[in-house]
């Protein structure tokens, strides 16, 4: 049994080695092709040929937008949970803060009624969530492990309950309607604003573009002193501090960056839905994002992407297949159930996730160093 588990685990490692051993150019071309594919994917003329891949029961572009949006959330949470090892269950709280900030700044129905355009509200939302991350992190990041999880969980619930009860600003359960869509000046070929109600494709493209930039940023951070500090904190916080890592500062940064990405997702969500109330921020969503990160492989950016894709896209796809076979599969009902089972199986066979956190152990310089004969060292 154990030997078999080891075999399953090592298969992933060999795939990884194969990818690494490919020339740099090949990897870039492959990556570029993937990006082009993702941009083309929501077009009907494109996905209609991919019958085995497309969702049949629900609108492909909408599902793709939701998936992309979920990927963005997972990439942000991965910084906090995967790299810095801080179990943050309140991630959706930041998402809510971002969404409400945009709603309050843009909607004519909000108390402030200042009617900013969506685009101007986005940086404000990111700034506000980042600040709220620092405010929450300041006192709570002194806690560790489970205690941090409890406090952050409390934070998310507090935000949600406040939003549902507060009549003055958040409009209680009625929520805030008429949030403007992103950039109304950009017109489509039909003269209508590109970002409308019916077509989800522009939102998907926007989200995809944001994801690419966020991934680039996170990748730069993780392959630097900052990322090393995060992983060191995750591995052994005391040892990290004794090795000169200002642990509190870097934990706060991880928290703030995660919060900012969460707030950005919230801003996107508000712009797409054009209406938010406290029901949009249920705790199960927090857990689902966390499950996606762990499924994909905490501490690996692309693992988080794949995990989120599987968590959101796969159930929709399964529903389509079920529909084609004449079965009525209600995804919403079974998602959590199937997910629990998948996670248990994962934890047995591949506890490190689908794409485990593999720090790019050896860059070319290191490989050269390794290959070079070392002088008698001991």
């Amino acid at each position, binding site marked *: 049994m154990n030997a078999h588990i080891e075999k399953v685990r090592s298969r992933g490692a060999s795939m990884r080695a194969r990818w690494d051993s490919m020339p740099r150019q090949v990897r870039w071309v492959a990556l570029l092709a993937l990006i082009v594919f993702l941009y083309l994917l929501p077009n009907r003329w494109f996905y209609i040929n991919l019958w085995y891949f497309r969702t049949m029961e629900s609108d492909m572009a909408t599902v793709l937008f939701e998936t992309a949006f979920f990927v963005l959330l997972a990439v942000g949470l991965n910084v906090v949970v995967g790299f810095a090892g801080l179990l943050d269950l309140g991630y959706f709280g930041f998402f809510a803060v971002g969404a409400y900030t945009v709603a309050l700044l843009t909607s004519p129905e909000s108390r402030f009624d200042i009617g900013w355009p969506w685009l101007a509200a986005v940086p404000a939302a990111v700034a506000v969530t980042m600040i709220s991350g620092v405010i929450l992190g300041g006192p709570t990041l002194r806690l560790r492990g489970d205690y941090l999880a409890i406090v952050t969980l409390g934070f998310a619930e507090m935000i949600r309950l406040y939003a549902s009860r507060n009549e003055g600003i958040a409009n209680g359960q009625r929520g805030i309607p008429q949030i403007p869509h992103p950039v109304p000046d950009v017109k489509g070929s039909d003269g209508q604003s590109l970002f409308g109600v019916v077509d989800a494709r522009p939102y998907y493209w926007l989200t995809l573009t944001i994801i690419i930039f966020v991934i680039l940023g996170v990748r730069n951070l993780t392959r630097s*002193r900052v990322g090393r500090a995060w992983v060191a904190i995750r*591995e*052994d916080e005391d040892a990290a*501090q004794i*090795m*000169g*890592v200002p642990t509190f500062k870097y934990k706060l940064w991880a928290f703030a960056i995660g919060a900012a990405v969460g707030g950005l997702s919230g801003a996107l969500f508000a712009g797409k839905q054009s209406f938010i109330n406290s029901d949009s921020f249920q705790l199960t969503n927090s857990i689902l994002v966390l499950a996606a990160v762990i499924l994909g492989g905490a501490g690996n950016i692309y693992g988080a992407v794949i995990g989120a894709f599987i968590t959101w896209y796969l159930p929709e796809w399964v529903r389509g297949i079920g529909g084609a076979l004449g079965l009525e599969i209600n995804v919403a009902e079974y998602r959590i159930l199937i997910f629990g089972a998948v996670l248990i199986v994962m934890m047995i066979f591949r506890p490190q996730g689908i794409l485990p956190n593999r720090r790019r152990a050896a860059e070319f310089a290191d*490989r050269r160093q*390794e290959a070079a004969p*070392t002088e008698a060292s001991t």
Partner: protein
Amino acid sequence: MTDTVPDTTAPAKAPPREALLEVDHVTLRFGGVVALNDVDFTLYKGEILGLIGPNGAGKTTCFNAMTGVYTPTQGEIRFNGQRISGRARHKITQMGIARTFQNIRLFPEMTALENVMVGADAHHKTSVVSALFRLPRFWKEERSGRDRAHDLLRFVGIARPGELARNLSYGEQRRLEIARALATSPTLLCLDEPAAGFNPAEKDSLLQLIRKIRDTGITVLLIEHDMRLVMGVTDRIVVLEFGKKIAEGLPAEVRDNPAVVAAYLGVPTDAA
């Protein structure tokens, strides 16, 4: 035990006399337990000082007080004349005190190279913004940190920089801890039982390594149970028992000290 120590290994040169670390009448209590009782000794620049004593004598506690893990109840510890009690731990590291751990505490999921680079980062100034946008400072510090880490890995004798720390052999892990500590550019290196679990050959190479470290101008404080190693490499020895200093002096003096023989050397090492 004592008769196995050859006299010839005692260092010939007189220890230098410029104080680096002063443990000034330090008492440390945990509730009713007195872990350190009025411990008082000085570490001079450029020497290798051994800290020995039976298990539970307070050696590691003393280490922890020096690296800021514990704050003394009474007395103070000065490093280069500056008081270190009450400073944040990473600040103490930046002042120039580095340590290894009795139970290996590497970052197991990081490569050997990255472990050492974390240490090198202690003096780096790259901010989150310059890392995010890959500003010139990022490239400069990343390159110098990487080169330094490679040099240190070669110095301690680890041939596979890309290997995850948890996949390294036990001996390599111990040496990697030393490399990581050295990467913080310390003036004082504290080694907490670096030879634990080593075979005689590994102990010999460790002894050479400690000498090499001292020869680069770093002062070394060594906690060790292996008397052959302690007698062979240290310039002076401080002996603790039940949190009190019972002896201090050259290895030969300490070895013949009746109180030390009674407390530590006289009994078989297994029971100590």
